[in-house]
Protein backbone atom coordinates (compact mmCIF):
# COMPACT_ATOMS: atom_id res chain seq x y z
CA UNK A 1 0.00 0.00 0.00
CA UNK A 2 1.48 3.26 -1.00
CA UNK A 3 0.67 6.51 0.57
CA UNK A 4 1.20 9.82 -1.11
CA UNK A 5 2.55 12.41 1.14
CA UNK A 6 1.94 16.10 0.58
CA UNK A 7 5.21 17.51 -0.55
CA UNK A 8 5.92 20.83 1.06
CA UNK A 9 7.24 23.46 -1.22
CA UNK A 10 5.99 26.25 -3.38
CA UNK A 11 2.49 25.35 -4.38
CA UNK A 12 1.38 26.30 -7.89
CA UNK A 13 -0.87 29.32 -7.40
CA UNK A 14 -4.15 29.65 -9.22
CA UNK A 15 -3.67 33.35 -9.99
CA UNK A 16 -0.29 33.80 -11.64
CA UNK A 17 -0.85 37.35 -12.97
CA UNK A 18 -3.13 40.18 -11.81
CA UNK A 19 -6.33 40.02 -13.86
CA UNK A 20 -8.77 42.87 -14.60
CA UNK A 21 -11.84 43.00 -12.37
CA UNK A 22 -14.43 41.92 -14.93
CA UNK A 23 -12.60 38.68 -15.53
CA UNK A 24 -12.85 37.84 -11.84
CA UNK A 25 -16.57 38.57 -12.04
CA UNK A 26 -16.85 36.16 -14.94
CA UNK A 27 -15.11 33.45 -13.03
CA UNK A 28 -17.05 33.85 -9.84
CA UNK A 29 -20.59 34.34 -11.30
CA UNK A 30 -20.79 32.77 -14.70
CA UNK A 31 -24.34 33.70 -15.65
CA UNK A 32 -26.30 36.21 -17.71
CA UNK A 33 -25.82 39.06 -15.25
CA UNK A 34 -22.14 39.51 -15.92
CA UNK A 35 -22.65 38.99 -19.62
CA UNK A 36 -24.90 42.06 -19.70
CA UNK A 37 -22.45 44.06 -17.56
CA UNK A 38 -19.63 43.20 -19.95
CA UNK A 39 -21.69 44.27 -22.92
CA UNK A 40 -22.46 47.62 -21.31
CA UNK A 41 -18.79 48.21 -20.49
CA UNK A 42 -17.77 47.53 -24.07
CA UNK A 43 -20.60 49.69 -25.39
CA UNK A 44 -19.47 52.54 -23.19
CA UNK A 45 -15.85 52.36 -24.20
CA UNK A 46 -16.55 51.94 -27.92
CA UNK A 47 -19.23 54.57 -28.62
CA UNK A 48 -19.58 56.83 -25.64
CA UNK A 49 -22.89 58.27 -24.41
CA UNK A 50 -22.74 61.66 -26.23
CA UNK A 51 -22.24 59.90 -29.61
CA UNK A 52 -25.22 57.67 -28.95
CA UNK A 53 -27.46 60.63 -28.12
CA UNK A 54 -26.29 62.45 -31.23
CA UNK A 55 -27.12 59.47 -33.40
CA UNK A 56 -30.57 59.18 -31.86
CA UNK A 57 -31.17 62.89 -32.53
CA UNK A 58 -30.05 62.60 -36.14
CA UNK A 59 -32.24 59.57 -36.81
CA UNK A 60 -35.34 61.11 -35.29
CA UNK A 61 -34.77 64.34 -37.21
CA UNK A 62 -34.46 62.41 -40.48
CA UNK A 63 -37.57 60.37 -39.78
CA UNK A 64 -39.43 63.54 -38.83
CA UNK A 65 -38.52 65.19 -42.14
CA UNK A 66 -39.50 62.13 -44.16
CA UNK A 67 -42.77 61.68 -42.24
CA UNK A 68 -43.68 65.34 -42.70
CA UNK A 69 -42.99 65.18 -46.45
CA UNK A 70 -45.05 62.01 -46.85
CA UNK A 71 -48.00 63.44 -44.93
CA UNK A 72 -47.86 66.65 -47.02
CA UNK A 73 -47.43 65.13 -50.44
CA UNK A 74 -48.79 61.59 -50.42
CA UNK A 75 -51.33 60.81 -47.69
CA UNK A 76 -52.07 61.20 -43.99
CA UNK A 77 -54.45 59.71 -41.42
CA UNK A 78 -56.98 62.01 -39.76
CA UNK A 79 -59.60 61.43 -37.03
CA UNK A 80 -63.13 62.57 -37.86
CA UNK A 81 -64.88 64.44 -35.05
CA UNK A 82 -68.54 65.33 -34.90
CA UNK A 83 -71.61 63.92 -36.58
CA UNK A 84 -72.03 66.19 -39.60
CA UNK A 85 -71.08 63.35 -41.95
CA UNK A 86 -73.28 60.57 -40.47
CA UNK A 87 -73.83 57.88 -41.60
CA UNK A 88 -70.68 57.93 -43.75
CA UNK A 89 -68.43 58.71 -40.76
CA UNK A 90 -69.30 58.32 -37.04
CA UNK A 91 -72.79 56.88 -37.50
CA UNK A 92 -75.08 57.42 -34.54
CA UNK A 93 -75.42 53.74 -33.65
CA UNK A 94 -71.67 53.19 -33.11
CA UNK A 95 -70.68 51.89 -29.70
CA UNK A 96 -68.63 54.41 -27.70
CA UNK A 97 -65.08 53.12 -27.11
CA UNK A 98 -63.43 56.07 -25.43
CA UNK A 99 -60.38 57.36 -27.21
CA UNK A 100 -60.96 55.32 -30.36
CA UNK A 101 -64.58 56.34 -30.75
CA UNK A 102 -63.86 58.46 -33.84
CA UNK A 103 -63.47 57.18 -37.34
CA UNK A 104 -59.97 57.50 -38.74
CA UNK A 105 -59.71 58.12 -42.47
CA UNK A 106 -56.99 58.21 -45.10
CA UNK A 107 -56.59 61.64 -46.74
CA UNK A 108 -54.69 61.65 -50.01
CA UNK A 109 -52.78 64.74 -51.11
CA UNK A 110 -52.08 63.89 -54.73
CA UNK A 111 -55.21 65.79 -55.80
CA UNK A 112 -53.55 69.05 -54.69
CA UNK A 113 -51.23 69.01 -57.70
CA UNK A 114 -53.96 70.06 -60.13
CA UNK A 115 -56.94 70.79 -57.88
CA UNK A 116 -59.08 68.45 -59.98
CA UNK A 117 -62.14 67.57 -57.93
CA UNK A 118 -65.58 66.31 -58.90
CA UNK A 119 -69.09 65.97 -57.51
CA UNK A 120 -69.34 63.70 -54.52
CA UNK A 121 -65.70 63.93 -53.37
CA UNK A 122 -65.29 64.08 -49.61
CA UNK A 123 -62.63 66.72 -48.90
CA UNK A 124 -60.73 68.24 -45.97
CA UNK A 125 -60.58 72.06 -46.13
CA UNK A 126 -59.62 75.01 -43.93
CA UNK A 127 -62.59 76.84 -42.51
CA UNK A 128 -63.09 80.22 -44.22
CA UNK A 129 -63.86 81.94 -40.93
CA UNK A 130 -61.06 80.40 -38.85
CA UNK A 131 -58.06 79.19 -40.84
CA UNK A 132 -56.69 77.00 -38.04
CA UNK A 133 -59.71 74.65 -38.06
CA UNK A 134 -60.18 71.98 -40.68
CA UNK A 135 -63.52 70.54 -41.72
CA UNK A 136 -64.52 67.41 -43.65
CA UNK A 137 -67.50 67.69 -45.99
CA UNK A 138 -68.67 66.46 -49.37
CA UNK A 139 -68.53 68.56 -52.57
CA UNK A 140 -72.05 68.83 -53.98
CA UNK A 141 -71.54 71.47 -56.70
CA UNK A 142 -68.63 72.59 -58.86
CA UNK A 143 -67.96 75.96 -60.58
CA UNK A 144 -70.71 76.91 -63.01
CA UNK A 145 -73.45 74.89 -61.30
CA UNK A 146 -76.59 76.48 -59.89
CA UNK A 147 -77.59 75.80 -56.28
CA UNK A 148 -81.00 76.53 -54.81
CA UNK A 149 -80.61 78.30 -51.48
CA UNK A 150 -82.83 76.68 -48.84
CA UNK A 151 -85.67 78.71 -47.30
CA UNK A 152 -85.65 81.23 -50.12
CA UNK A 153 -86.50 81.39 -53.79
CA UNK A 154 -82.98 82.36 -54.90
CA UNK A 155 -80.66 80.33 -57.02
CA UNK A 156 -76.91 80.93 -56.63
CA UNK A 157 -74.39 80.26 -59.38
CA UNK A 158 -71.11 78.86 -58.04
CA UNK A 159 -68.36 81.30 -59.11
CA UNK A 160 -65.21 80.20 -60.92
CA UNK A 161 -62.65 78.51 -58.68
CA UNK A 162 -65.16 77.83 -55.87
CA UNK A 163 -67.22 74.83 -54.80
CA UNK A 164 -70.24 74.10 -52.63
CA UNK A 165 -69.67 71.70 -49.71
CA UNK A 166 -72.33 70.01 -47.61
CA UNK A 167 -72.34 67.44 -44.85
CA UNK A 168 -74.15 64.13 -45.37
CA UNK A 169 -76.22 64.85 -42.24
CA UNK A 170 -77.89 68.15 -43.13
CA UNK A 171 -79.55 68.68 -39.76
CA UNK A 172 -76.25 68.79 -37.86
CA UNK A 173 -73.78 70.32 -40.26
CA UNK A 174 -72.08 73.73 -40.58
CA UNK A 175 -71.33 73.97 -44.27
CA UNK A 176 -71.80 76.08 -47.40
CA UNK A 177 -75.43 76.73 -46.48
CA UNK A 178 -74.00 79.00 -43.76
CA UNK A 179 -70.74 80.36 -45.16
CA UNK A 180 -71.34 80.18 -48.91
CA UNK A 181 -69.19 78.60 -51.60
CA UNK A 182 -65.53 78.10 -50.64
CA UNK A 183 -62.49 78.66 -52.90
CA UNK A 184 -60.95 75.41 -54.13
CA UNK A 185 -57.58 76.68 -52.84
CA UNK A 186 -58.74 76.05 -49.25
CA UNK A 187 -58.95 72.30 -49.81
CA UNK A 188 -56.17 70.36 -48.09
CA UNK A 189 -56.87 66.80 -49.24
CA UNK A 190 -59.41 64.23 -50.38
CA UNK A 191 -60.70 61.37 -48.22
CA UNK A 192 -60.45 58.00 -49.95
CA UNK A 193 -60.69 55.21 -47.34
CA UNK A 194 -61.90 54.59 -43.81
CA UNK A 195 -59.18 52.91 -41.73
CA UNK A 196 -60.90 52.57 -38.32
CA UNK A 197 -63.11 50.98 -36.94
CA UNK A 198 -62.26 47.64 -38.50
CA UNK A 199 -65.86 46.69 -39.28
CA UNK A 200 -66.21 49.68 -41.60
CA UNK A 201 -62.83 49.63 -43.33
CA UNK A 202 -63.24 50.36 -47.04
CA UNK A 203 -63.31 52.87 -49.86
CA UNK A 204 -65.60 55.90 -49.71
CA UNK A 205 -68.34 56.05 -52.33
CA UNK A 206 -68.69 59.08 -54.49
CA UNK A 207 -72.48 58.86 -54.23
CA UNK A 208 -74.80 61.70 -55.02
CA UNK A 209 -77.18 62.44 -52.18
CA UNK A 210 -80.75 63.53 -52.91
CA UNK A 211 -81.82 66.88 -51.52
CA UNK A 212 -79.57 69.89 -51.13
CA UNK A 213 -78.56 71.41 -54.43
CA UNK A 214 -80.05 70.88 -57.82
CA UNK A 215 -77.31 70.54 -60.41
CA UNK A 216 -78.54 72.00 -63.65
Amino acid at each position, binding site marked *: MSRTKAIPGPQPSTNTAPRPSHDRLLRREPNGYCFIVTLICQFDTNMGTPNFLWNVCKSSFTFG*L*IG*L*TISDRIASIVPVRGFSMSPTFNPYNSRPLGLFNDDHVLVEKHCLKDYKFSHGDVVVFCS*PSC*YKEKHIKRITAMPGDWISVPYSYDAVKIP*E*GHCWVEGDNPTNSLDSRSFGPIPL*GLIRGRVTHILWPPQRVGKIDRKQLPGGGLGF
Partner: protein
Amino acid sequence: MSRFQQWAFIVKEALDKSFLVAKFFCAVHVTSTYLCSTALVYGPSMLPTFNLSGEIVLLESISTRYGKVDSGDVVIVRSPENPRKVITKRIIGMEGDSITYVVDPINSDRTETLVVPKGHIWVEGDNIYSSNDSRNFGPVPYGLLQGKVFWKIWPAGAFGSIGRRPQTVDPALKVVEELKNS
Protein backbone atom coordinates in the same frame (compact mmCIF):
# COMPACT_ATOMS: atom_id res chain seq x y z
CA MET B 1 -15.30 38.25 -53.86
CA SER B 2 -17.95 36.10 -55.43
CA ARG B 3 -20.31 37.57 -58.00
CA PHE B 4 -23.17 37.53 -55.55
CA GLN B 5 -21.14 39.54 -53.03
CA GLN B 6 -20.18 42.10 -55.67
CA TRP B 7 -23.78 42.46 -56.75
CA ALA B 8 -24.97 42.84 -53.16
CA PHE B 9 -22.36 45.54 -52.60
CA ILE B 10 -23.55 47.50 -55.66
CA VAL B 11 -27.18 47.22 -54.60
CA LYS B 12 -26.34 48.43 -51.10
CA GLU B 13 -24.45 51.42 -52.51
CA ALA B 14 -27.36 52.27 -54.81
CA LEU B 15 -29.83 52.08 -51.91
CA ASP B 16 -27.66 54.31 -49.74
CA LYS B 17 -27.33 56.93 -52.46
CA SER B 18 -31.03 56.98 -53.24
CA PHE B 19 -31.82 57.27 -49.53
CA LEU B 20 -29.52 60.29 -49.43
CA VAL B 21 -31.32 61.84 -52.40
CA ALA B 22 -34.70 61.19 -50.75
CA LYS B 23 -33.51 62.84 -47.53
CA PHE B 24 -32.33 65.88 -49.49
CA PHE B 25 -35.66 66.15 -51.30
CA CYS B 26 -37.57 65.95 -48.02
CA ALA B 27 -35.39 68.68 -46.50
CA VAL B 28 -36.00 70.94 -49.51
CA HIS B 29 -39.76 70.35 -49.32
CA VAL B 30 -39.98 71.07 -45.59
CA THR B 31 -37.86 74.22 -45.90
CA SER B 32 -39.80 75.66 -48.80
CA THR B 33 -43.21 74.87 -47.31
CA TYR B 34 -42.66 75.83 -43.70
CA LEU B 35 -39.70 78.23 -43.65
CA CYS B 36 -38.55 80.19 -46.66
CA SER B 37 -38.96 79.98 -50.43
CA THR B 38 -38.52 82.00 -53.62
CA ALA B 39 -41.01 83.19 -56.20
CA LEU B 40 -41.05 85.06 -59.51
CA VAL B 41 -43.31 88.11 -59.46
CA TYR B 42 -44.34 89.64 -62.77
CA GLY B 43 -47.13 91.73 -64.22
CA PRO B 44 -48.31 95.32 -63.97
CA SER B 45 -50.48 95.08 -60.87
CA MET B 46 -47.75 95.84 -58.32
CA LEU B 47 -46.01 98.77 -60.07
CA PRO B 48 -43.95 100.60 -58.88
CA THR B 49 -43.02 98.16 -56.11
CA PHE B 50 -42.21 95.36 -58.57
CA ASN B 51 -41.39 95.98 -62.21
CA LEU B 52 -43.26 94.68 -65.20
CA SER B 53 -40.97 91.99 -66.51
CA GLY B 54 -40.34 90.06 -63.36
CA GLU B 55 -38.41 89.97 -60.13
CA ILE B 56 -37.36 87.11 -57.91
CA VAL B 57 -38.32 87.55 -54.26
CA LEU B 58 -37.85 85.66 -51.00
CA LEU B 59 -40.95 84.74 -49.08
CA GLU B 60 -41.34 83.27 -45.63
CA SER B 61 -44.24 81.15 -44.35
CA ILE B 62 -43.64 81.46 -40.59
CA SER B 63 -45.58 84.73 -40.16
CA THR B 64 -48.59 83.50 -42.09
CA ARG B 65 -48.75 80.25 -40.12
CA TYR B 66 -48.92 82.15 -36.81
CA GLY B 67 -51.15 84.96 -38.00
CA LYS B 68 -48.48 87.65 -37.71
CA VAL B 69 -49.22 89.47 -40.97
CA ASP B 70 -50.71 92.95 -40.94
CA SER B 71 -51.88 95.59 -43.42
CA GLY B 72 -49.07 96.95 -45.52
CA ASP B 73 -47.39 93.55 -46.01
CA VAL B 74 -46.91 92.17 -49.50
CA VAL B 75 -48.16 88.58 -49.57
CA ILE B 76 -48.52 85.73 -52.00
CA VAL B 77 -52.00 84.17 -52.03
CA ARG B 78 -53.58 81.37 -53.99
CA SER B 79 -56.04 82.97 -56.41
CA PRO B 80 -59.71 82.46 -55.41
CA GLU B 81 -60.60 82.37 -59.10
CA ASN B 82 -58.13 79.70 -60.15
CA PRO B 83 -56.52 77.50 -57.48
CA ARG B 84 -53.60 76.62 -59.75
CA LYS B 85 -52.39 80.24 -59.84
CA VAL B 86 -50.68 82.26 -57.11
CA ILE B 87 -50.86 86.06 -57.09
CA THR B 88 -48.88 88.75 -55.28
CA LYS B 89 -50.76 91.62 -53.67
CA ARG B 90 -50.53 93.94 -50.68
CA ILE B 91 -52.77 93.56 -47.64
CA ILE B 92 -54.92 96.65 -47.21
CA GLY B 93 -57.07 95.46 -44.30
CA MET B 94 -57.34 92.57 -41.86
CA GLU B 95 -60.55 91.14 -40.38
CA GLY B 96 -62.72 93.73 -38.72
CA ASP B 97 -61.15 96.69 -40.56
CA SER B 98 -63.38 99.08 -42.47
CA ILE B 99 -62.12 99.45 -46.06
CA THR B 100 -62.89 102.31 -48.44
CA TYR B 101 -61.86 101.52 -51.98
CA VAL B 102 -62.20 103.04 -55.43
CA VAL B 103 -64.32 100.61 -57.43
CA ASP B 104 -63.16 101.52 -60.95
CA PRO B 105 -60.45 104.21 -60.92
CA ILE B 106 -60.12 104.44 -64.70
CA ASN B 107 -63.74 105.38 -65.36
CA SER B 108 -65.03 107.05 -62.23
CA ASP B 109 -64.23 108.17 -58.70
CA ARG B 110 -66.97 106.13 -57.01
CA THR B 111 -65.89 104.60 -53.71
CA GLU B 112 -67.47 101.92 -51.55
CA THR B 113 -66.94 101.00 -47.93
CA LEU B 114 -67.22 97.63 -46.27
CA VAL B 115 -66.06 95.76 -43.19
CA VAL B 116 -63.74 92.80 -43.78
CA PRO B 117 -65.45 89.65 -42.41
CA LYS B 118 -63.90 87.38 -39.78
CA GLY B 119 -61.13 85.13 -41.07
CA HIS B 120 -60.66 87.14 -44.29
CA ILE B 121 -58.24 89.79 -45.59
CA TRP B 122 -58.57 92.52 -48.21
CA VAL B 123 -55.79 92.65 -50.79
CA GLU B 124 -55.11 95.18 -53.53
CA GLY B 125 -52.32 95.67 -56.01
CA ASP B 126 -50.19 98.81 -55.71
CA ASN B 127 -51.24 99.77 -59.24
CA ILE B 128 -55.00 99.94 -58.81
CA TYR B 129 -55.53 100.90 -62.45
CA SER B 130 -54.41 97.49 -63.63
CA SER B 131 -54.99 95.01 -60.86
CA ASN B 132 -57.43 92.12 -60.45
CA ASP B 133 -57.76 91.99 -56.69
CA SER B 134 -60.29 92.04 -53.84
CA ARG B 135 -62.18 94.82 -55.60
CA ASN B 136 -63.11 92.15 -58.16
CA PHE B 137 -63.25 88.88 -56.22
CA GLY B 138 -64.03 90.08 -52.70
CA PRO B 139 -62.25 89.46 -49.43
CA VAL B 140 -59.86 86.50 -49.44
CA PRO B 141 -60.03 83.80 -46.70
CA TYR B 142 -56.89 83.72 -44.59
CA GLY B 143 -56.34 80.03 -45.39
CA LEU B 144 -55.33 80.96 -48.97
CA LEU B 145 -52.21 82.83 -47.84
CA GLN B 146 -49.04 81.11 -48.96
CA GLY B 147 -46.34 83.42 -47.62
CA LYS B 148 -45.13 86.95 -46.92
CA VAL B 149 -42.63 88.63 -49.26
CA PHE B 150 -39.78 90.23 -47.35
CA TRP B 151 -36.78 90.63 -49.71
CA LYS B 152 -36.05 91.09 -53.39
CA ILE B 153 -33.06 89.21 -54.76
CA TRP B 154 -33.12 89.66 -58.57
CA PRO B 155 -32.42 91.74 -60.66
CA ALA B 156 -29.39 92.95 -58.78
CA GLY B 157 -30.39 96.59 -59.09
CA ALA B 158 -33.61 95.89 -57.22
CA PHE B 159 -31.94 93.99 -54.36
CA GLY B 160 -33.41 95.14 -51.08
CA SER B 161 -36.49 95.22 -48.92
CA ILE B 162 -40.04 95.92 -50.01
CA GLY B 163 -41.28 99.47 -49.54
CA ARG B 164 -44.49 100.75 -48.00
CA ARG B 165 -47.54 101.29 -50.16
CA PRO B 166 -47.04 104.30 -52.47
CA GLN B 167 -49.24 107.10 -51.16
CA THR B 168 -50.46 108.55 -54.43
CA VAL B 169 -50.77 106.31 -57.43
CA ASP B 170 -49.03 107.89 -60.40
CA PRO B 171 -51.44 108.76 -63.25
CA ALA B 172 -48.62 107.89 -65.64
CA LEU B 173 -49.31 104.24 -64.81
CA LYS B 174 -52.74 104.71 -66.32
CA VAL B 175 -50.94 105.54 -69.58
CA VAL B 176 -49.01 102.27 -69.35
CA GLU B 177 -52.31 100.37 -69.08
CA GLU B 178 -53.79 102.18 -72.10
CA LEU B 179 -50.68 101.51 -74.18
CA LYS B 180 -50.89 97.83 -73.28
CA ASN B 181 -54.53 97.65 -74.34
CA SER B 182 -54.14 99.53 -77.62
